[in-house]
Structure formats: structure tokens, C-alpha cells
């Protein structure tokens, strides 16, 4: 069952690579949020108690409803176009995606073969790594601030997927704290996308490069000396 969910998660991410519309992407993230929640419950079948339920439900709430809603809200309020503007074409993205999946699987299997730790199924771990790389890839290749936020969410999902195996070993408060952090983080990002939109009339982060290091004129030139006089 976990394996099925892992595959679904991986596929959904690959789908993100090929998707050209922001709204569809948000829906994929919603799906991932619910999938992760279910996977969490499944993984902790033997330890189901109030705290596992709370974590699962709040995670689904956060990742499946609150954050996507926030993103949609931002999307509507800002004057951004609804299409994704990638640096890397969708086809190429898909190809790279497959490569990344391969790499993650290699790392995960390589590790699980030699490792004594069996808490996390290799399939899930490879998917988790894949999601992390996917998230980074999305941030790297998509121009808009909002798509970068989506990338961040995917990345977080990947991390969360890794955490599935250890839910009962992690204190409840910490889990909640992690979720709070993610929520506040995305919330802040949302606010900033608003501000960016207002200040720049666009949310393209590739035009977001005023903070640079120019090369100052040479400091100790004799010409410079004379001009200073």
C-alpha cells in the first residue's frame, strides 16, 4: 500500500514537471498533501492514537487545504499570468525528472542494502528524495515567485515523506512545531509575493537581481590619486 502511494507521489511530481498551468500544479500539491496524510496513517497502523490522528489530520488540513487555498488566494489577487514560465522546457523537465528519479532510487537502494535501518521502505525513501530534488528543480527552473513557493511545498512534502517512518518516535510537539513553521513560512512567502507584485508589477524572480556585487574601481591607482586631489 505504501509502495502504491510512493509511486503515486512520484508520478504526481513528474506530472508537475510537465504541467504548464499554475492552478493544475496547485491541485497536484493538494493531492500530494492528502496522499502523505494517508500514508502516515497507514505507516503507523499499529500505533494509532490521538496524537497520530491529530498529526495526520492537521497535516492534511495544512497541506491539502490551507496552504493551497493561500496560494490560490495569492494567485487571484496578484496580477500574475496563470501560465507557468519555465526556463527549461516541459519536455526536458520531464527527462530530467526521470533522471532524478533514477538517482534517488540509486541512493535509496544503495543505502538500504547496506544499512541496518529498516524503518523506512526503500520505495518510500527514494520517492522522498525524488520529491526533494523535484522541489529544488521546480524552484530552479520556474520563473514566478508563486511557482517557486509550490516547489518549496513539494520539497517539504519530500522531507515529510521521509519522516513517515518515524512518526511515533518524534514528539508530538515537535511535529506540530514543524507544521507551524511551514505554515508561517508559506504564509510569509505569500505576503511577500503580494508585496513583490505591488512593487515590481511582476512576480518574475529572474528579474529579481538588483542585489549584485559590482567591481569597484581600482582603489590605489595613481590616476585615482590625482583625481582625488
Amino acid at each position, binding site marked *: 500500500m505504501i509502495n502504491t502511494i510512493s509511486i503515486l507521489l512520484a508520478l504526481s511530481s513528474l506530472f508537475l514537471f510537465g504541467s504548464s498551468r499554475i492552478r493544475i500544479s496547485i491541485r497536484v500539491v493538494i493531492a500530494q498533501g492528502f496522499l502523505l496524510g494517508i500514508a502516515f496513517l497507514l505507516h503507523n497502523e499499529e500505533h494509532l492514537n490521538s496524537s497520530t490522528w491529530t498529526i495526520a489530520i492537521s497535516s492534511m488540513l495544512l497541506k491539502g487545504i490551507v496552504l493551497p487555498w493561500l496560494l490560490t488566494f495569492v494567485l487571484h489577487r496578484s496580477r500574475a499570468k496563470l501560465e507557468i514560465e519555465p526556463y527549461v522546457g516541459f519536455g526536458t523537465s520531464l527527462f530530467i525528472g526521470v533522471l532524478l528519479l533514477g538517482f534517488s532510487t540509486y541512493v535509496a537502494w544503495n543505502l538500504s542494502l547496506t544499512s541496518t535501518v529498516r524503518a523506512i521502505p526503500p520505495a518510500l525513501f527514494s520517492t522522498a528524495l525524488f520529491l526533494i530534488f523535484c522541489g529544488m528543480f521546480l524552484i530552479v527552473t520556474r520563473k514566478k515567485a508563486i511557482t517557486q513557493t509550490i516547489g518549496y511545498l513539494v520539497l517539504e512534502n519530500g522531507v515529510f515523506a521521509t519522516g513517515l517512518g518515524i512518526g511515533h518516535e518524534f514528539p508530538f510537539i515537535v511535529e506540530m512545531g514543524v507544521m507551524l513553521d511551514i505554515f508561517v513560512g508559506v504564509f510569509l512567502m505569500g505576503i511577500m509575493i503580494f508585496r513583490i507584485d505591488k512593487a515590481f508589477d511582476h512576480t518574475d524572480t529572474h528579474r529579481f537581481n538588483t542585489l549584485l556585487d559590482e567591481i569597484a574601481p581600482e582603489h*590605489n591607482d595613481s590616476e585615482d590619486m590625482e583625481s582625488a586631489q
Partner: protein
Amino acid sequence: MWTFLVGCGVIALGGLLALVFFKHEKAAKISATVLTVAGSALVAMPVIETALGADTEFIRLAWTLPLGEFHLGLDRLSAFFALPILLLSPLCAIYGIGYLAHRKGGGGHYFFLNTLVVSMLLLLCAKNAILFLIVWEVMAISSFFLVVFDDHLPSVRQAGWTYMIATHIGVMALLAFFSILGHHAGSFDFQAMLAGGELSSSMRLVLFLLAVVGFGSKAGIFPLHIWLPEAHPAAPSHVSALMSGVMIKMGIYGLMRSLSFLGEFEATFGWILLALGVAAGVVGIVSALSSHDIKRMLAYSSVENIGIICIGLGTGILGSAWHNPQVTALGFGGALLHVLNHSMFKGLLFLTVGAVVHETDTKEMHHMGGLLKKMPFTAVLFFAGAMAASALPPFNGFVSEFLIYFSGIKSAMTKDVSSILLAAVLLTSLALIGGLALAAFTKVGGMVFLGEPRTALKKTPHDPGWTMKFPLLLLGIFALGTGIASPLLLPLVSDAQTVLTGDAASLMALDSDILPSLINISYVSGAFLVAFVILAFFYRILTGRKKCEVARSPVWDCGYAKPAVSMQYTPSSFSAPLVLLFKPLVHIRWALQKPEGYFPKSGRFETKIEDRVKEAFYAPLFRLIAKTLLLFRFLQHGHVHIYVIYVAVTLIALLLFTAGN
């Protein structure tokens, strides 16, 4: 030893008082000076005692610094190097009162001046590497602030910058030096380093080179000298005197001290130092000859003198490597004596030149001339200093060079091929340097003090007030006195050099010939003065006769009876033929605007002397490094998504690294 510390404390207190009184210029200067004089007097007591043979004293205080300990000790070598400090510092402080009379910022200036003095004194006594490095840097920083006193001038800022970089390059080498040595000795205590275990031959070479770079950058050993000709002209003259007279000698002290840690000397070290010394001597004096900024010229002359000191050190090391204790003692002794002598005459020269610059408001020789008539006192003392700097008897410069010559000839007496090579190199280079120094100093003396003023000055120059005259006079007397009474100085040197070799045998015990020679030299020097007085008296009688008419007329100009000031030979033309012979060593930039037409209105010819080492080595090197580094500036391009790639790539690379392990 405690007297020593108390004395240092008094000087430091003077500096603090200067800072406290910074609003009252005069009070600040005077309080700092008075306490410097008092403190120096206190410090002088143990120093002279030790220099004359008292036992080394130590002070150890607990100090919670990692690796550090407050450990001071005053041995012969330290005491010897302390002598010029104790002589020059009070004089420079006194001189500064007059020199900076109409300037603001004296409080801060005197604070750094006193800090410099204290740091130098502590440096000499530091017996722990950390303490040594700390006071070393305090010395560097305080002298930096002294250099940039006139920071509104771009050239001064440039000089300060150059000085700072040069110093820091040296500090880096010293850090490496001491950390390696400390690692080998297992402690940062100098005594542990002295006793430290056997070093491998290659490690010794590395350490030696590090010491040469580290201390050489302070001492101005070729080719690390480039800050000297920048910083000395930039600094106020008494600071130049103090820096050139004693501070750069701290580099020599450091080099000597570190040599003592290296165990047995190898001939390679000696050849390296000798080669550097010869190069510094020749390049230094040729550059001095070509410079027409009067203080820059003196700075280059310091480079030359450091070169001579290095020649002495190199000879000493070679002597030791060849198990020829006489040559060792003579070489080291000559180098040490030259340290002392150079501090006197270079201090004197900088202070006299300071008076000239103070009166004429320019450092350009082309604008000076005829100052002997306006400033006779300064002029006479300048000529005294110039003679000493050209190593002419009866002044002290000759005596120390004599010792170095002597060491070379002594080594040749073994008739060993390499010893003869050493002697030949030493004699040739010293003779050449001597000849060139004479050319350089007659040029300065002639162009600045003799003839007629080349440009109109804003005000009529005159001899300075007593605060500036007194130090000049005293230094002049010392330069002459130590020249004539050199046999009396020999015991000081004779013992101080034993610290380097670790042998107990003093120079005088090893070499019975040197003392009689020095005594003869002092007879001749004395006779020189006496004979001069007698002959001058006769001359006076001869020209004072009634029959002897004394008249004045224009000088001969091929029958042209209206000679003009501008027809005088210029400093550049004086030195040009000689400098052109050594063309590869200095870079002269020409700017010529030819007079045109039958009745030309204007014409202009300008030369600018650039340091060849700086131009051909440092500038391209620094440019290359900067260029290479700046190539990587693109990394910070502002695109945040690419930044994320950095994170991803780092992560992947590390994962692969782990997988590989």
C-alpha cells in the same frame, strides 16, 4: 628588569596623557615627551647594565591566553638593540614638539609615538612567541598611524596602504614561522624553541625563508623593501627618523633572534642573505641616487644600509657554516654595529632633512639649493650625516663597514675557494656601494645646501628652534663620537653577537687583530680632526694676510657674465650618467615638452622614478591575483533560482562523496 617594565610603563603613560590632553596640543606633546625622556632614562639603566655584561633577567607572569605567556627577558642582544631606541626615541619626541608646532592632532600622534616606543622595547624582551607577535603587530599598527599623519594627501594614504600590506604579508609569514617552530619545540616559549628538537634540513630552510620574508618585510630587505620609499616620505620627519633608525631594525633583530632558533647554520642561508644584501645594497643606492624626492632618497639609502647589514649577517652565517668562528663573530659583529651606527646617522639625516622640509615646504630637490647660507647649523649636521652614510671616516658609518670588510678578508685568508668567492663578492659590492653612496650623498648635499636656490620659496628659510636643533646636535656628536671612539663600542658588539651563535666566545677573544685596527682607525680619525683644525687655521692666516686680496665675482660660465639660477646643474642631470649605467635597476619615466619656435615660451621636462621591483613584480602579481579572483565574481549574479542549484549541487556532490567513501 622591573625597572625596565616601569620605564615602559612611564612611556606608555605619556602616550595616554597625550590622548587625554588631546584638546591642548602643547600639554599633550610636552607631557608625552617628558615622560618619554624619563621612561627612557629608567629603561636605560638595566639595558646598559646588561649590554655591559650583567646577567640576563627574566620575568614571568601568569596570563590566560591560549598558548601565550607573559615572559620577558633582557639578554645581550635585546639590550644592544634597545640602545638605539633609547637614544632616538626621546630625541624624536623632542624634535616633534617643534616640528608639529603648528599642526593639529598632536595628541593622537604622540599617543602612537609612545606606543611605538613601548612596543619596540617590549618586542626586544618578549620571550614568548605570542607575546612577541602581539607587540610586533602593535608596533606595526602604531607606526601605520604615525605614517598617515597627513592623511589628507593622497600620496600619504597610498603610502600607508602599501606599508600596511607589506607589513601584513610579513605577519603572515611570521605566523607560519612561529607556528611551525612552536609545533617542533612543543611550546611557544623562546627558551623551548632555542632548545627545541632537531629540525630536518629542508624544514630549516623553509623556516629560514619564512623568517626572511616575515622579518625582511619589516626591515625592508630586498625585494620586500617597496614600502620604505613610500612610507618614509609620507611620514613626518621625526617619525621617518624613528622608523628608519630603529623600527626597521626590529626586523633585523627578529631575523637574528630567529636565526638563533634554527640550530646549526647552513651555508645556503648565508648565500641567500648575502645575495639579498648585495642586491639590496646596489638597488637601494642606485634608487637613492636616482630619486629626487629628498626623503625618498633617504629611504632608499636605508634599503642600502639594510643590505649592508644583511651582507654582514650572511658572512657571519657562512663563517659559522664553515666553522670559522672569527669570520662569524666579525660578520655578525659588523652587522650589529652597523645597526647601531645606521640608527644614529640615519636618524640625524632624517631630522636634518625634516628641518629643511619644514622650512622649504617641499621635498623636491629640484626646488632647493643654497640652503647652507640660510641654515648653516642644519647644513653642517647634514654633511656630517652624509659622510657617515657614505661610510667615510672619521664618522661611525665607516667603522661598521670596516668590520664587515674585515670579516670578508679574514674569510679569504683560509684560501678556500668558496671563502674567496665570498670575499670577492663582499669586497666588490661594498666598494661599489660605497662609491655610489658617495655619489648619492654628494648629490643631495650639493643640490640642497650648496649653490643657489632653484626656485623662489614662500618664506626665507632659517635654522629651526632649539627643540629641533638639540636632537640634531646630539646625534651629530654621537655619529662622530662613535666613529672616533669605536674601540670602546667593540665590547658591546663583541658580546651581543654571541647570542646568535650560542657560543660563549666573544669577538674580541676570537680575533685579536680587530681591536688594534680599530684603535689605529680612531687615531687617524682623531688626527683627521686635529689636522683639519691646524690646516684650516693656516689657510685662514694665508688668506687673512694684508697682501692677500679677497674678492667676489660671478662664477665662470664660458665668458657669459650673467649666470642665472636656472643654469645650475640639476639633481637629475648630476645623477643621470651613473643611473643610466644601472638602467635595469630603476625605471625612469620621462615626460618631455620641447620648446618650440624661435622664441619658445615654455618647455618642460619631468622625470619620475619608479621602483623597478614594484613595477615589474608586485604590481603585475597583484593585478594578476585580483584579475583571477574577480573572474569568479559572476557567482553572485542575483538569480535566486540559480542559487538553489548551488544548494542542490552541493548536496548531490556530498552524497556522491559519501557513497564513494
